[in-house]
């Protein structure tokens, strides 16, 4: 009886903790799942098709990398109550602020195009014309924000995040070779053929899709808009950790799908993979297409919001999802402007959309150190951060990430100029 009472008590305690987590969960999971955007899904499917399961270990390594970077934004947002753009202007002055904003606008806009590329390609598999997809997406994206409550937006976004997990059941449906998957996951190895330019490009794209400048801006602004306090920081960190775990699981799911069903096939995008899957298992093909649309949708709403928040902070516009359209007209105007501009590019006939998608990931990762350096400097400011400033270990981890990205970007650029250096 005593045992049952204890068990019941623990069960109630667990429920209470879970309820509290669900209340505070949001920015971390959303940013990490949106990280698996259309460009991400394209990158993972191409990785799996070209290199089977050989690079899953690399994706697993990127999980903690994403966590370390994004966790800093939780602390910074909770303590300063400022979005990232405002924090840079406030702490480093207008010059560095404008440069950071320029980076953000450029990379965000390019990435937004890739989201619409993914969405239109996904629904075209079901026979939906591009124009219809773009217009329907605009309508749903608009409907999500105009109700004027951050909470509602967040919960709808979490539903789209849940849909992003569709790759996990799909990966189980195809009976992948478990032994090979586990080997590729836990034993670091290079694919047969060794280190080539093509492999390097994909590794760069994988880094670029796991951590991107917009994620830093988005999560910090979302933490502020949600009203998270210092006391909520632990929950925000757990939220980010759960998100980074899920992002890796989804990425691995995509690689497993293409690595099992179409290994060695030279596909260039996720939509082509979905079409080929249709011929093998129509349900898995449909799952991949639905997941691709969802990924693009999630990415588009988050990236557009990241830019709108940043502009609102800097220009002093009302910039909260808790405000109605008439209360924050410029904030919403920029949000829609961003969506419309990116959606329109996709409608241009014969644009090299697939090449743009992979290229954008690589540009994003190349510009990432500029954003990360400021983030690390802000997190080391004792006056602002107090007891929440970076520890030595956090500094070591984050500075290592920045150095690694700069080195990898440099080597990639050299290999781009001199293609024969790495072979392939």
């Amino acid at each position: 009886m005593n045992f049952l009472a204890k068990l019941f008590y623990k069960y109630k305690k667990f429920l209470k903790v879970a309820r509290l987590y669900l209340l505070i969960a949001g920015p971390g999971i959303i940013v990490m799942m949106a990280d698996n955007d259309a460009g991400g899904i394209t990158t993972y499917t191409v990785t799996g098709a070209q290199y089977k399961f050989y690079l899953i270990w690399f994706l697993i390594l990127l999980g903690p990398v994403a966590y370390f970077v994004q966790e800093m934004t939780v602390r910074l947002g909770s303590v300063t109550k400022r979005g990232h753009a405002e924090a840079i202007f406030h702490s480093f002055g207008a010059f560095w602020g404008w440069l950071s904003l320029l980076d953000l606008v450029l990379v965000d806009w390019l990435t937004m195009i890739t989201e619409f590329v993914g969405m239109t390609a996904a629904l075209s598999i079901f026979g939906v014309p591009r124009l219809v997809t773009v217009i329907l997406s605009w309508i749903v994206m608009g409907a999500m924000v105009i109700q004027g409550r951050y909470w509602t937006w967040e919960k709808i976004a979490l539903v789209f995040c849940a849909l992003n997990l569709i790759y996990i059941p799909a990966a189980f449906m195809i009976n992948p070779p478990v032994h090979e998957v586990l080997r590729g996951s836990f034993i670091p190895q290079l694919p047969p053929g060794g280190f080539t330019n093509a492999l390097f490009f994909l590794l760069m794209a994988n880094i670029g899709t796991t951590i991107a400048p917009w994620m830093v801006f988005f999560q910090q602004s979302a933490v502020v808009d949600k009203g998270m306090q210092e006391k909520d920081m632990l929950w925000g960190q757990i939220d980010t950790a759960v998100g980074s775990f899920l992002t890796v699981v989804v990425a691995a799911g995509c690689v497993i799908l293409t690595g099992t069903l179409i290994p060695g096939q030279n596909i260039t995008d996720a939509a082509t993979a979905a079409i080929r899957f249709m011929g093998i298992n129509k349900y898995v093909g449909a799952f991949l297409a639905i997941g691709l649309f969802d990924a693009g949708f999630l990415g588009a709403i988050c990236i557009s919001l990241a830019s709108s928040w940043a502009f609102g902070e800097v220009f002093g516009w009302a910039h909260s999802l808790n405000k109605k359209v008439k209360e924050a007209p410029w904030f919403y105007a920029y949000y829609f402007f961003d969506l419309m501009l990116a959606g329109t590019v996709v409608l241009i006939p014969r644009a090299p959309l697939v090449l743009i998608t992979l290229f954008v990931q690589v540009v994003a990762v190349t510009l990432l150190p500029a954003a990360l350096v400021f983030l690390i400097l802000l997190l080391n400011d004792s006056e602002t951060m107090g007891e929440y400033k970076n520890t030595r270990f956090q500094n070591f981890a984050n500075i290592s990430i920045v150095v690694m990205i700069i080195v990898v970007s440099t080597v990639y650029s050299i290999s781009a100029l001199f293609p024969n250096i790495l072979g392939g």
Partner: protein
Amino acid sequence: MIFNFFRNTSAAFKAINRKYSTPRIKMTPLARLSLGVLRFYLLFLVGILVYKFVMTLHK
């Protein structure tokens, strides 16, 4: 109307520059130079990527 738009935008930029004219975190000239070099270097790398992108398109 267009003239007004540009005038208002320019005024907004000036106001922001004034508001954030004094950085709260003081950086040494060396730190500023390092950040500037890093920024220039990263843009240079992006330039190479753009070059490769254009070359790939023309293949």
